[in-house]
């Protein structure tokens, strides 16, 4: 019988630092604080952790974190590529390791001085002629140096084909900012947003305005993954991994999949949806809340379609009447998300998914059985469904 990842592992620990614009500490310190807190939250000891996973973009190596935190032997360690596309991939690695016995307790993390240190969108350049650098070179020469500029092209085409408008994007920004008013660790806490303010905000890359773009954040977030069996005996209500996958689709590029016939949809996210629904035996009707990756507001619309919550092009209608807020059809990013809580590359969205299953979100909807979480949009990505332990 082949091993599947359905119901094999659970997330039982969350650790996060303060999210700020200037941490004043090293990225290694942020990583260690987040990892240490995740271990504490689960009620485990550092020496019980035998697997560590982070992003290729993370500046702290697994062994540096292990040595600093007092984690002993490691039997699995990995780094996942593609920026925010990696977030769910970390959980995928951890679940595979646990299901196969390669590790028993795996901590995954992302920690970054994303505002005070190396910022996103400062252009890409380098000295070594790698295939990655050649890829970016087609855009650099023309001045397309930021994630906003790349996503803007996809967004413009999506608007052209389906009639979505900036007001629809504004509705998403405002809903998530409203969620952040209950989250003291959120960048948007105490700063509600109106449609007038949204529409008056400056252009970044048309059709994207300032408030369509996520935060730049200093901070770290870690999660502890263990077996479903062990999870039953630990301190926190487990968030069982009902399904988890990575997905990259034909013609995939990193942020610039402009060369497919149809660029107004997210085929890699449709593949992720198909995989995670089949693995879990669940479908969109079973999903009670979501943390869809939200580096940019239009990504939410396109993902609602990719995950089958509505038909292609109809997400602008789906989101009306508070559908993405508490009490609506699909409360989404109830912590504020990358847009209004922090940009910890999507790992903080997984943490909120865990809180929603635990029943401890700062905007907890009633009766949450299953939560869908996605990784980066426009990159090789992944999807995760968390659920209550039966």
């Amino acid at each position, binding site marked *: 019988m082949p091993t599947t990842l359905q119901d094999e592992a659970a997330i039982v620990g969350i650790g996060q630092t303060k999210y700020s614009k200037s941490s004043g500490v090293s990225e290694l310190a942020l990583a260690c604080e987040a990892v240490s807190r995740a271990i504490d939250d689960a009620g485990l000891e550092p020496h019980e952790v035998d697997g560590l996973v982070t992003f290729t973009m993370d500046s702290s190596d697994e062994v540096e974190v292990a040595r600093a935190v007092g984690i002993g032997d490691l039997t699995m360690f990995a780094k996942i590529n593609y920026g925010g596309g990696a977030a769910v991939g970390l959980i995928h690695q951890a679940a595979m390791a646990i299901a196969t016995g390669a590790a028993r307790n795996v901590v995954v993390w992302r920690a970054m001085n994303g505002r005070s240190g190396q910022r996103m969108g400062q*252009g890409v350049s380098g000295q070594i002629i790698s295939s990655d*650098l050649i*890829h970016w070179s*087609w855009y650099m020469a023309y001045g397309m140096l930021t994630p906003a500029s790349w996503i803007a*092209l996809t967004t413009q085409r999506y608007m052209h084909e389906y009639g979505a408008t900036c007001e629809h994007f504004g509705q998403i920004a405002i809903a998530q900012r409203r969620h952040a008013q209950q989250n003291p660790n959120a960048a948007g806490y105490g700063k509600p947003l109106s449609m007038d303010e949204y529409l008056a905000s400056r252009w*970044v*890359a048309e059709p994207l305005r300032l408030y369509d773009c996520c935060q730049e954040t200093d901070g770290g977030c870690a999660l502890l993954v263990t077996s479903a069996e062990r999870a039953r005996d630990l301190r926190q209500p487990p968030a069982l991994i009902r399904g988890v996958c990575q997905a990259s689709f034909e013609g995939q590029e990193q942020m*610039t999949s402009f060369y497919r016939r149809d660029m107004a949809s997210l085929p890699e996210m449709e593949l992720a949806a198909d995989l995670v629904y089949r693995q879990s035996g669940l479908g969109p009707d079973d999903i009670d809340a979501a943390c869809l990756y939200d580096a940019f507001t239009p990504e939410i619309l396109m993902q609602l379609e990719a995950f089958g919550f509505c038909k292609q092009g109809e997400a602008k209608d789906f989101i009306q009447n508070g559908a993405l807020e508490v009490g609506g059809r699909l409360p989404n990013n109830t912590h504020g998300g990358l847009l209004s809580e922090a940009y910890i590359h999507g790992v903080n969205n997984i943490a909120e998914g865990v809180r929603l299953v635990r029943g401890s979100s700062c905007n907890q909807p009633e009766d949450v059985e299953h939560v869908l979480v996605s990784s980066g949009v426009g990159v090789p990505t992944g999807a995760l469904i968390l659920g209550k332990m039966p």
Partner: protein
Amino acid sequence: MSSKPSRIKPPLGPDNAWWWDQVSKGTVFPIQRCSGCGKLRHPPRPICDACRSMEWNWIAASGRATLHSYTVIHHPAFPGYEYPILIALVDLEEGERAISQLVDCDRDAVRIGMSLEARIQTDADGFKLPVFRPVA
């Protein structure tokens, strides 16, 4: 020598240097073509995804294209570029899609589907790159 900053130059490796070299020699828009099956591919890559031949040549595109999508970049502003930048994603007549810049076009006149033609722009430092403008 002018000290004015100029645009970021593409790093040149075996898979892309020929393209920029052809542009510098005056080819308005080169497109890589598989020697095995004739399939066009842009941006250039070392192997054909249809027949897996690693032999290739190139053709000069007609320069005629239509606008598939666009963005207007305002922020952040990097040295060496003039803002706002009108970026065009174009469908070349030959069937390939390509990133470029839209010039000689008022922002309010930009329409997806509009007809464009390529020309080579030469920067103050002599660097050449293809850009597109509306067909009159």
